[in-house]
């Protein structure tokens, strides 16, 4: 069973995404910011995909991606940035940090699942 790590400081968004992913049969782990995400990975979580927001307190998405890329378990894990940010520089920063893809928030449930299915077949 694939586990997907969803990182977002908005409980609404976390709940929404978790609902969609769990509905499609994925296990979902959640974190409210990058630091919590890293803590979970350090604690042994091995996500098949990571979906992360960019703008978060404590550790933002770009910092998280950099940290995740320095961690053995998530060095090659697909990390999709989910953001409604329209600033191209943010996208570039995420990409430079090692993000695998970018999905404009909020995605249609079918979009989200399409991307996830493609990257992590159940």
């Amino acid at each position: 069973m694939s586990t997907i790590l969803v990182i977002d400081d908005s409980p609404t968004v976390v709940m929404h995404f978790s609902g969609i992913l769990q509905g499609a049969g994925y296990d979902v782990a959640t974190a409210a910011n990058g630091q919590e995400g890293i803590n979970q990975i350090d604690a042994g979580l091995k996500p098949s995909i990571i979906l992360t927001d960019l703008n978060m307190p404590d550790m933002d998405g770009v910092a998280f991606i950099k940290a995740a890329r320095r961690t053995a378990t998530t060095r090659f894990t697909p990390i999709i940035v989910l953001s409604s940010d329209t600033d191209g520089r943010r996208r570039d920063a995420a990409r430079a940090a090692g993000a695998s893809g970018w999905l404009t928030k909020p995605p249609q449930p079918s979009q989200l699942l399409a991307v996830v299915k493609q990257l992590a077949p159940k």
Partner: protein
Amino acid sequence: MSGDPANAIWNTFFEECEEQLGELEGGLLRLQDGTAEPDCLNAVFRAVHSIKGGAGIFALNPLIRFAHVFETTLSVVRDGKLEMTPDVMTIFIRAADVLADLVRAAREKQPDDPSKTKDIAAQLAALNDGVGAGKKPAVDAVMAPKKPAVIVPPPPPAGPDHVWHIQFTPTPASDATSHEVALLLHELGRLGPMTVVGGPDAAMNHIEGAIEVSPGQLWHIVVRANCGEAALRDVFSFADEEWKLRISQGALEEEASAPEAEPEPEPEPEFEGFEIFAMDPQEPEPEPEPVKLIAGAPPAPEKPAPVSADPVVPEAGAKAAAVSKTIRVDLDRVDRMIDLVGELVINGSMLGQMVGEAGISRAAGVALALRDLDQLTREIQDSVMAIRAQPVRAVFQRMTRLVREVSAQTGKPARLVTEGDNTELDQTVIERIGEPLTHLIRNAVDHGLEDTEGRKAAGKPAEGVIRLRALHRSGRIIMEVSDDGKGLDRARIKAKAVQKGLISADVQLTDSEIDELIFLPGFSTAQVISDVSGRGVGMDVVRRSVQALGGRISISSKPGEGSSFTMSLPLTLAVLDGMVVAAAEQILIVPLTTIIETLKPRAANVHELDGTMQMLALRGNFVPLVDVSLALGFSNKPAEAAQSVALLVETERGVRAALLVDRIIEQRQVVIKSLESNYQAVNCIAAATVLGDGRVALILDVDAIIPAGKPEQLMSRIGSWEDEAA
């Protein structure tokens, strides 16, 4: 409320909005008065951004649109392209208010009213345009990726695939048909990778079952599947002739744009808003982190760095940043737990009583263990109560806005200074304190503060200060609203009370007694019912709402220096301070907040009125005397007043009366048990409780037991009481 997941997300969203709006307002105010922390502007931006993000899930378009404009302007400031002048600040604070209004409108599902947001949105947009930042994509394009609708199923199974083009027109355009289409999309998806090439945008939603079929619309689906035409026709077996189903293999000649069945191993989702970044085999590479502790080390450049030799280095220091861990729990669950712990406390004291009655020594092991148990249960009770406790900050923050609004309406410059924002109070008390607090603060600005000339003449700064303070004091919460205005005009209050027939003209009253008059029903000092404090709501209503929470309110005032209202509130509504009394051998609890005094009546002071009602002469005044045993039907012969005890009580309506009971037993805290939820509503009884010895005692509803009278008449000579008492 918890059953429906969509509903749960909806509720979570608005809870989150409240938090974010609090952050937003708090952050903006800190930026305004210069006490902002370095990350403050970012936090403000994030708050708006999060609201926009959540709103996107529910397609709350007015909210999304406004949040987007707001966020854009904030980002311009964040990027240093726009200076945060006081004018900009004012626009931001107003925008925060408008955002809060939009959130509320969305929650209450009110129709969109663009007139309310137009002004401020235009001002925000003007700020953007001023720095040439208006070229951000329109929010509709940002938030609503539209075309084309593509559904990418799991990777295709190995084997030679055929590319099938399926075209049909679902009819009739009904919900049933929509459902059928949803089903068949699902079925087709099982055969192989499927793309909806032509059809409504809503096809993207088919997972949610939300497809809309419009009349005569041609659907075109491409399926790459290792199956024959028969299998496909099978899927459509339920479809009507009317659907004009066409199934063909390979490319359709008129289909130029349809994605051909490229034998690419990895079909990419092709909708807008998604991008898989091209992967350089070398990437991603960790950036060499400059050691930040070394002074003068340059900041890390924001660009991909060359290959590094030590790729797997855990984050140095793993950030000591404390991550706040919170969970959201349904309030019902907490209440259930509070209830159970209440039972536990009662059980514990029953056990203690039994051990005592069994003649066991206090030093015996059982007794000692019991004492430990008692200590533990009380600690549990305190901790559980603490779960319900919330800081008053959220309410206080709303008041900041209120002062701003009332100040604008009245033309009296004023600001709110809060103190003790972190003081915790029961969630229910917090929810219900907002209304009385709003009245007090409106009054403070509208009536308490002088106008600008008045303040100048009194040598005060032009801006009035309203102070809102919360603190703990001996097991209760004290909340204070004070102003630095003119203080109460006692001569006018007294004249008004006389004019309204509330007191007689010759009564001598002390200053504090005059101040108390403003709490009488029907009293309002405003000469003109103003837009702000008017609405026919007086201080009596405020007093009643505070009393309904088990609290008390008082006022103190100094001419020329201002007035101060002090509310004393219980920490929780789950327990109540009560007077335990006996009436016809039944144990009753009278809420302590309603009792003014207790006395032994003399037979000579009891008078019959119309033969139906007894009145007690009390220091030159008459109050109705209510025989509790009779009123509740515990006995059918009137109690001897001389053998009884009278409790002088005041109801939430402001009516005073004397309750006649057999005797007073003790004063104690009781855990409130609802009768409605455990049994049924009983007239004159507010709730029940279980006493230490396991007996059930009823809590008296003082308001209900006192015969309705005209409060003005009953209170007509309030002053004379104090006279004779003195």
